[in-house]
């Protein structure tokens, strides 16, 4: 879509923004080193030629079996320039802390909470670091690939209904 954005980013952060490629549909994608993500985001937002002003959609992926295991993905948008870029940040299982970008965009708040809730990735510096969907007593992070599909953790005991199959069971289809 706009190679200028990628070039500016790679030129500004050599080594920290690496391996740019053009994904399906012409999306620009860049890998970013974990420790520099906040600086990269601030640059994207504040550089007058880039202006990624809209709070990005942040999500995470669990590539179980690969190293590094996790990935946090930032889908950034500029409403004034109309361009987009996707930042992929590799997160090893041994160090699940990614610098928060809530200081850059307030709107990243709930997306980062979602990543903590569902994948167990921490965001040091986040102003309200709680689970988003699950309750505080919940153990584990449900969207991890090693969390069972039918894992159940009811807060109150469930009634026994004979014709209903209930977990916990292995992930996979019945």
């Amino acid at each position, binding site marked *: 879509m706009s190679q200028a954005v990628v070039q500016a980013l790679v030129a500004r952060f050599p080594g920290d923004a690496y391996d740019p490629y053009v994904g399906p549909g012409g999306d620009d994608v860049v890998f970013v080193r974990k420790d520099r993500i906040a600086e990269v985001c601030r640059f994207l937002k504040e550089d007058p030629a880039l202006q990624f002003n809209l709070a990005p959609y942040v999500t995470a992926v669990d590539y179980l079996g690969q190293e590094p295991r996790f990935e946090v*993905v930032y889908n950034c948008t500029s409403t004034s320039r109309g361009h987009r870029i996707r930042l992929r940040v590799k997160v090893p299982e041994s160090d699940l802390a990614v610098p928060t970008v809530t200081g850059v965009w307030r709107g990243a708040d709930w997306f980062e909470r979602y990543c903590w809730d569902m994948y167990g990735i921490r965001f040091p510096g986040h102003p309200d670091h709680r689970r988003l969907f699950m309750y505080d007593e919940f153990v584990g992070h449900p969207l991890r690939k090693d969390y069972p599909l039918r894992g159940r953790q009811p807060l109150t005991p469930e009634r026994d209904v004979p014709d209903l199959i209930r977990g916990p069971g292995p992930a996979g289809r019945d």
Partner: protein
Amino acid sequence: MSTHTPDAPAPRPPPAPLGSQALDAPLDSREMIINLGPSHPATHGTCRLVTRLDGEFIRGMRVDIGFLHRGFEKSCEAVTWGQVFPYTDRLNYVSSTMNNVGFALAVEKLCKLQVPDRAQYLRVIAAELHRICDHLTMVGAMGLELGAMTAFLYAIEARDLMWDRMTELCGARLTSNYVRVGGVARDLPEGWVEKTLATLDRTAELRDTIGALLTRNRIFMDRTRGVAAVSRADAVDWGYTGPCLRASGEPYDVRKAAPYLVYDRLDFDVPVGTRGDNFDRYLMRMEEMVQSDRIVRQCFQGMEPGDIAVRDFRYVMPPKPQVYGTIEGLMAHFKLVMEGIQVPAGEAYGYTEAANGELGFYLVSDGEGRPYKIGLRAPGWPMVASMPAVLKDALLADLVPTFDTFNMIGGEVEQ
């Protein structure tokens, strides 16, 4: 000479005259915590709002969501790509086809599929009809929340007419499942275009009635103008999209900024507000209904007969005579049902303009028949997240109407 005895009470001094200062002096009050929800009828689903009140003013708020969380993403990772569609219907259940369209476009982005012209028109028609439904619901419910029950009844009548047309199109009234990867499920029924045009006429009448009841209504204006105003910079910083972003003055619409389907061939305007308050957010919806009406009518004129899906049986179910009559058709059907569409390995982010804003699907495929990851960017998410900041020092009575203009849909926000 005094008639008072020493132990009688002294006469009370006359009260001080009531000046405006005395009238406006704040009462000493204690802050209290009021819990709204999770199953409060005005929260449209299950959303818990814990408010810290000073008298009637909201001094702090905490939004607690997740009571309707059904594990959308986890469930989708366990089924084939085609089987995800019924799950997407239940995200924004007022405008389900728009979720179908968003998901189908994201998968097609990954598959590098180009769907036929007619299918694109049909998708736009279904999506825009549902946009009208969504806005009608929001406008009607907003009137209801401010005490105008009548407007709600008109809105629901118009919405049900729309849903009747959707039923004829795809067989379901609420969870309309019309779009497939590679096209749409079926072509328009006989006489549907004429019926839909009549429905659009009737809906326009009802919409104008609602507008006449609300837009210049003194009570409605007093209760909505200047309430919960969000500045343009704040709206962008919070990540607002859709009508809420445009109400704040940022003219961003995915249909114009990155046109998908046939939106670049259609002539429509994007309304933009100035103050970003509840009234502007209401006006955005009213005007977008007019524009959607225009879009559907243009589609009826612009579309031509043709295929409604790609003729590639790796993605689309073959027609039934081929399934029953030829071995190739039977095999293609079997592979699609049992193994699912073989989406090439990779990742993509597909985004469309749904009724409440940008609906995004971040998809990761490992080359198998089931999604490796489906990330959902629900349009209402950033708006609900910003509520504590937007409603700080607002009146408690304005909480519910504001909640309504953000149009929180539990199905999509809580996944």
